């Protein structure tokens, strides 16, 4: 049923942007969600087509090819760092604020304090010059109040830790879409530096 719906939507209108304007109810089949159901697809754009590359949880990716990096975050935070000089960018999907929480963990992209320098370093290595690094962040929601009451406010802590890490590494924070109670789908165009965020089942916004 779901697949059939997706197929239908694709055939009727393959354009992401115009689908998002169709009427929808709060729990309904959201056309924009439906179109993103396929795991790999090409985003239609007025100028160019971009390949979507998914960044897994606790992972980070740095790209120099023209792609859109995507990830889904709830309490996690997506850190998008854009290099405006080299037209490259990287996205880290962090889960925890501080790498000191656990011992002997080698996965730097899991923690706010280690992911930011790792991302910046990877971008510097990939480019000819290191100027023009800027960041946009999204995530840090608290979707379930029982969880929040019980196990500290991890979303909030993640956001704070990311901001601190950006400041420590001298990277300017240009925009943010954080906190709240909805999960976010983040799409980061590494060429333009634009980040499209869809919060829950609302419309896509650009930050």
């Amino acid at each position, binding site marked *: 049923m779901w697949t059939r719906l997706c197929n239908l939507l694709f055939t009727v209108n393959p354009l992401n942007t115009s689908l998002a304007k169709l009427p929808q109810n709060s729990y309904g089949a*959201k056309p924009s969600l439906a179109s*993103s159901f396929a795991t790999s697809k090409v985003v239609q754009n007025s100028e160019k087509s971009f390949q979507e590359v998914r960044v897994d949880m606790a992972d980070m990716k740095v790209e120099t090819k023209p792609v859109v990096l995507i990830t889904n975050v709830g309490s996690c935070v997506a850190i998008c760092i854009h290099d405006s000089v080299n037209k490259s960018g990287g996205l880290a999907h962090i889960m925890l604020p501080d790498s000191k929480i656990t011992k002997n963990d080698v996965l730097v992209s899991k923690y706010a304090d280690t992911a930011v320098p790792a991302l910046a370093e990877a971008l510097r290595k990939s480019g000819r010059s290191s100027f023009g690094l800027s960041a946009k962040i999204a995530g840090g929601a608290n979707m379930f109040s029982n969880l929040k009451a019980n196990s500290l406010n991890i979303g909030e802590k993640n956001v704070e830790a990311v901001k601190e890490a950006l400041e420590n590494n001298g990277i300017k924070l240009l925009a943010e879409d954080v906190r709240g109670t909805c999960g976010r789908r983040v799409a980061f165009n590494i060429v333009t530096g634009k980040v499209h965020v869809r919060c829950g089942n609302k419309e896509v916004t650009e930050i």
Partner: protein
Amino acid sequence: MTESVTTKNVEQSPEEVDLGIVLELGSIGAGHAATSLSEIFQEPISIEVPKIHTMPPHMVPSHYKKHDVPTTAVYMQLRGEAECDILLMFEVEEAKKIAAMMNMVESPDDVDPDMEASAIDELGNIVIGSFLTALSDFTGANLVPNPPERATDSFDAILDSFLIKQMLSSDMAMLFDTQFKRADGNISGILMMFPSRDLQRTLTEKAKSWVS
């Protein structure tokens, strides 16, 4: 990604916790839940052979590969002598169909959002309640459920808070899952259980006392 992922549906005990016991417990709970669901829908509901997964928490989303799938989830937290998070997840379309059946309307499009929300909450209560009964009977622990909470979002976004919570206490996530199926073969839902370290220990001790 070189880290190991183990998925077990037979006993194969790791260092601390006897997975077979958790699996047995989960199966009893899932059996109860399937019976209640069959009564509600007036049609046979079958469950898949339940599985226990132990893997690093951050690997869970890539295990399910449902990243962007719009999902409706009911979450209930059990507290008291032991703690456990239980999640019941449906694809949004599936949740609508279930709500239509529970509200006795023909088409999923005829269900208004409020009716759907309360139907899904109620379903969560029933399924998770069955689990709670199995858990209390088995452990003898006094468990109190918090009221259910519902969220509709992408699969990954719903899961991540629970994975973070597990990550705070352990390098490995332990999660139990089973799938409910209606007679027509449509996958209806995934039930996940995240036992806390305390509960894992309680279960293991209980199992030992049975054996000796």
